[in-house]
Structures are given as structure tokens and as C-alpha cells.
């Protein structure tokens, strides 16, 4: 028997091995009572830094495509890019969650190990090539998320969030499996590229594609929080602990997009296909932009507002499936980098507001800018960037997505772009509502119990600087890099 493929597979997946080994090590180390929580936290950070370093070395030197573990996962620049992005997101999340979680009576080690495990699941989601791996890794990320949403056991809202997440998740992944079983019955394969090749030679009715696409979309769209499957999103975001919410709004969402890109690339392929699957994406992305932005207008709670803003952003990202070329995938990768930077930053400000000042809605933040101007300015930068206003990075990410979609100009793309632009203008209102409340209104006295921890302030300042710097400096290299990493 030849076992070389296992050896190569394990060699190329050193970051994953480091993460899973580190998770087990952190759980084991937590048995010893002498070890302080700071030590465990530093251990987990070191694991992520190590994994990120290895990935960085790989991504610089590697070009080409390899299929590992007998077709289970693809090892290419696309998966390496997402590996890097997810490790970075997990690292930033871990940093700024420390001041919040260090005082928890239970769930400290669980948070660290679950965050590491979830990163592993997301990495595999972005690189899986078969239905089996896709389903398994989707469940991997989902199960971690269920536990993370319910970490605050004494809080009824947290329990509710966890339960809602489980019920929606179980339902939608069941529907997805049902859809995949049809594709398997027709083609007899679980590899997405083989399925696509076989389907191209068969003459199947369009309604078959329609039904299977919608069924499978249920599972993916639930992770991406796109409109027909977004109902869990606001409740889970509100109930879950805020660092966990920050993680949910970036990591698993982008992982869902990565998996969807590989799935669409395999089954339908770039260029013409027997079925106009782009129509489905027009409907879901237009609905997400409309419902996400219009519902966000009425929100008062900051975390709920961010949930609806996340739904709207998922709608903007889903626009790229209308054209689905190498350029548009590249612009999605660029968008996901910028989106994670500004969304994580916005959530750090929400964490500070919640932890030190007991503010969780817009009304009670009136006049806050006079208490902590630094935080208010950072928050304004993130909010303006989320709208997509010019002096910030969010402008370019939105512009590139719109540009790549509008290239084959026809009525459908024109309609989608029009909706996107109009909803962007609408989104200005609710983001500015927060800034307006902080700067323009007179409010009560905000007393602070302790100084804001440096571990919260520093990442916030760095992310805010990055948002501005990407606009001012030469951002072309980042976009070129993203384009070179697209499928």
C-alpha cells in the first residue's frame, strides 16, 4: 500500500495540525490550577501566530493547484488566502475578547478552544471539494457556533440565541443534504468538479436545477445570513456574548462565501451553463440589501443594528455571483478583507461601550463623544467605512464589487447595481444615526469604573488606521494579490 498521499497531505496542512494540536493542549493545560488565565490566553495566541506564520510562508512561495487526501480538499492560493484571513480574524477576536472573558466564572478555556476549533472548521470549509467535506465542515463550524452562542449560561438571551441557532441550523443543513442527495443520485459522485462535468453532458430540465440549487442554497445561505435564511441572525447576534458576535459576523459568514464560490465554480462553472443560476442570486442579493438596510433603520440596539447591516453586506457580496469571473471573485476576496477589518473594529467599539459604560443602544449613547472622543472618532471611521464613503477603505471594496458586476451590462446587472446604490444611500441614515447621537446630542454623565484596557484600545486604533491607510496609500497591491488568489 502506498501512503505517500497521507504524508504530503499532512506536510501541507501544518497550520491545521498546529491548531488542532494546540486546542487539545490548551484543554489539557487548563486542568492545572496553578496556570493563570493569562498564560492560557498567551498559549492560544501563540498557536494562532505560529499557524499564521506558516501560512504566510506558504502563500508567498506557492503557485499551482494540488488536491490533497484523495480529492477531499484543494490546496491552492484560494484556500491559502482564506486560511490566512481566518487565522487573522481569529487572532484579532481572541485579542480583544480577553478583557471581556477573563472575568467569566466559567467558559474561559472553552471560549479559547472553541475559537481555535472554529478556525479549523472555517479553513477546511474554504478548501473542501466534496459534498461530504462541505457538509462535515459546515456542521463543524455550526456546532462550535452553537456552543459559543450559549457560553453565558446565566443569561437567558444567550441560551435563547443558542437554541434558535441550533434549530435553524439543523433545519437548513438537513435541507442542504436533501439537495445534495439529488445531485449524487444523478451523477453518482460527491466531488463538485466531477458533478459539474457530468451534469454538462446530461440534458436535464431546468426545474431540476432550480429545485436542487434552492435546496442546497438553504445550507450555504444560512451560514452567509442571506435573506430568506436570515431570521436567526438578529436574535443570535443580540443574545451571544459580544466578542462571539464579532466573530460570527465575520468568520463563518466569509467561510460560507468561500465554500459557495467553490461549489458554484465546480457544479455550474464559469461561463455559460445549462441553467441560469444567476437569477437566484439576483433575487437573494436584492432582497438581502433591501430587507437588511430597511430593517436596520428601525433598530435601536447596537448589536441588532450590526446584524442587519451584516445581512445587507452579505447581499452586496452575493452580487459577484451575477458575473462570476476571476475579477469578480478577486473583488469579493478584497471585500471580505476590508469587511472584516471594519466590522471587527466596529465591534470592538461596541464591546468597550458595553463593558465600561453600560451602553447597548443608540439612545443611551447620546453625547458620548464628549466623554471619550477617541472612541467616538474610531467608531465614526468604522461607520463611514461601512457605508462606503470615499476617504475610507469601504469605498474601494464596494466600488470594486460594483465595477466587476456591471461589466457585462444588461438589464439584470443594471437593476441589481441600481438597488445596491440606492440601498447604500439608505444605509447612510442608520450608520450616521449612531454618530449623530454621539456628537450632536446632549446626554447624561458617563461614569467609568476602570480605565479602558490597552488590549481593547490598541487593536481598535490599528484597525481604524488600517481603514484609512488602505485608502490613502497604494491599495492596488492588495487587490492584485486578491485577484491572484481567486479561483
Amino acid at each position: 500500500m502506498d501512503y505517500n498521499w497521507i504524508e504530503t497531505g499532512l506536510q501541507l496542512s501544518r497550520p491545521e495540525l498546529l491548531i488542532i494540536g494546540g486546542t487539545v493542549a490548551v484543554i489539557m493545560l487548563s486542568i492545572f490550577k496553578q496556570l493563570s488565565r493569562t498564560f492560557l490566553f498567551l498559549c492560544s495566541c501563540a498557536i494562532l501566530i505560529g499557524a499564521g506564520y506558516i501560512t504566510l510562508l506558504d502563500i508567498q512561495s506557492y503557485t499551482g493547484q494540488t488536491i490533497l487526501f484523495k480529492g477531499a480538499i484543494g490546496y491552492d492560493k484560494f484556500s491559502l488566502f482564506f486560511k490566512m484571513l481566518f487565522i487573522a480574524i481569529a487572532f484579532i477576536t481572541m485579542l480583544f475578547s480577553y478583557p471581556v472573558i477573563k472575568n467569566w466564572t466559567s467558559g474561559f478555556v472553552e471560549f479559547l478552544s472553541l475559537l481555535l476549533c472554529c478556525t479549523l472548521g472555517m479553513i477546511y470549509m474554504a478548501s473542501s471539494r466534496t459534498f461530504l467535506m462541505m457538509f462535515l465542515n459546515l456542521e463543524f463550524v455550526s456546532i462550535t457556533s452553537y456552543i459559543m452562542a450559549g457560553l453565558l449560561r446565566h443569561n437567558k438571551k444567550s441560551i435563547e440565541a443558542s437554541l434558535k441557532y441550533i434549530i435553524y441550523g439543523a433545519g437548513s443543513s438537513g435541507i442542504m443534504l436533501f439537495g445534495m442527495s439529488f445531485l449524487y443520485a444523478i451523477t453518482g459522485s460527491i466531488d463538485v468538479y466531477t458533478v459539474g462535468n457530468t451534469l454538462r453532458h446530461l440534458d436535464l430540465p431546468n426545474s431540476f436545477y432550480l429545485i436542487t440549487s434552492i435546496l442546497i442554497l438553504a445550507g450555504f445561505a444560512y451560514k452567509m445570513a442571506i435573506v430568506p435564511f436570515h431570521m436567526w441572525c438578529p436574535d443570535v447576534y443580540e443574545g451571544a456574548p459580544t466578542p462571539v458576535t464579532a466573530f460570527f459576523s465575520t468568520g463563518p459568514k466569509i467561510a460560507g462565501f468561500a465554500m459557495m464560490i467553490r461549489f458554484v465554480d465546480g457544479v455550474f462553472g464559469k461561463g455559460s451553463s445549462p441553467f441560469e443560476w444567476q437569477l437566484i442570486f439576483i433575487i437573494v442579493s436584492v432582497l438581502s440589501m433591501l430587507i437588511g438596510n430597511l430593517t436596520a433603520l428601525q433598530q435601536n440596539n447596537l448589536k441588532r443594528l450590526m446584524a442587519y447591516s451584516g445581512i445587507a453586506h452579505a447581499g452586496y457580496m452575493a452580487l459577484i455571483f451575477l458575473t462570476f469571473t476571476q475579477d469578480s471573485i478577486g473583488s469579493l476576496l478584497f471585500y471580505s478583507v476590508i469587511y472584516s477589518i471594519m466590522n471587527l473594529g466596529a465591534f470592538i467599539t461596541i464591546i468597550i461601550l458595553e463593558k465600561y459604560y453600560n451602553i447597548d443602544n443608540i439612545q443611551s449613547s447620546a453625547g458620548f463623544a464628549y466623554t471619550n472622543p477617541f472612541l467616538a472618532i474610531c467608531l465614526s471611521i468604522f461607520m463611514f467605512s461601512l457605508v462606503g464613503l470615499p476617504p475610507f477603505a469601504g469605498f474601494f471594496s464596494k466600488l470594486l464589487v460594483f465595477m466587476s458586476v456591471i461589466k457585462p451590462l444588461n438589464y439584470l446587472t443594471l437593476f441589481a447595481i441600481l438597488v445596491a446604490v440606492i440601498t447604500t444611500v439608505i444605509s447612510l441614515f442608520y450608520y450616521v444615526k449612531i454618530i449623530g447621537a454621539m456628537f450632536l446630542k446632549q446626554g447624561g454623565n458617563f461614569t467609568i469604573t476602570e480605565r479602558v484596557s490597552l488590549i481593547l484600545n490598541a487593536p481598535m486604533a490599528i484597525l481604524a488606521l488600517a481603514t484609512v491607510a488602505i485608502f490613502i496609500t497604494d491599495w492596488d497591491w492588495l487587490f492584485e494579490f486578491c485577484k491572484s488568489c481567486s479561483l
Partner: protein
Amino acid sequence: MLRELFFVAASLLAILTALLTVTRKNPIYATFFLISHLISIAILISTLKLYYLSAIHILVYTGAIMILFLFVVMLLNLKEEELEKDFSIHLKLLYTLAPISVMVIIVGQLKPQDINLSKLSQLNVISFENATKALFDKYFLAFEIVSALIILAIIGSILIAKKKV
């Protein structure tokens, strides 16, 4: 001939028990009918000569999952008046019509010759030996990920079951 007989009997039984499952008000009766439904599905699978799959089906679904179901249902200890609660007629209509319409579209569009039986019949060779070989060969990574998933599940269940909050 005998196999066709079994096939027809098992499929009729499966439909009947599935209907009984969703119409029972008492969840314990519903669970028992679901168990018999799953057993009849296992018989259906074994008429396709997929004996290993059918054995696993009974082991996993009837043995593990349904017993857990029953356990949770009995643990919840629902009261009489809660069991009497009923859906409105609109919801009942919706819940009946939606799956039926999906089924009609799928069955109407899918021709039997589309289904790739030659590939499916490879499953016939599934034996315990081949299954283990596949597990450590083609599905090696999936197998390893499942083991990581089990660690996760242990962490989660300990977290939920811990007394001290």
C-alpha cells in the same frame, strides 16, 4: 418475486407509519411510529441487497437517535393541556401543501433513467472490510474531522451539564 413482495410491503408500511407519526398528538406515540418507520426504511434498503447499510441504519437511527429522542420526550414530561394544543387550519394546510408541492415537482421532473444506478450499485460490495478500508483511505480526512468534532461535542456537553455556573 419474494423481494418485490417485501419491497411493496415495506414501502406501504413506511408511508403508513410516516403519516401516523405526523398525525399523532402524543409525542411518545409519534416517536414509536417513527421507529417503525425507520425499521421499514431499513427493510427497503435491504431489498436492494445493501445489507451493511441497512444494519447500520437500524443501529444508528433506531438504536441511538430514536432512543435519545424518546428519552428527551419523556424527560420533558409534557402536560395534558399542552398536548391538546393544535395548529390553526392555515398552518396545517401550509405544512401539508408545501412538502407535497416540492415532492410533485421533483418526482415530475426526475425520470427514472436519469438516476445513475450503475454507480449506486457499487455500494453492493460494501462489507465491513471495505468500509474500514474506505474510512482510512478515501475518507481519511473526513474521519479525522469527525473525531475532532466529537472532542468539540464533549466540550459542549460538559459546559452545558456543569452544575456550577
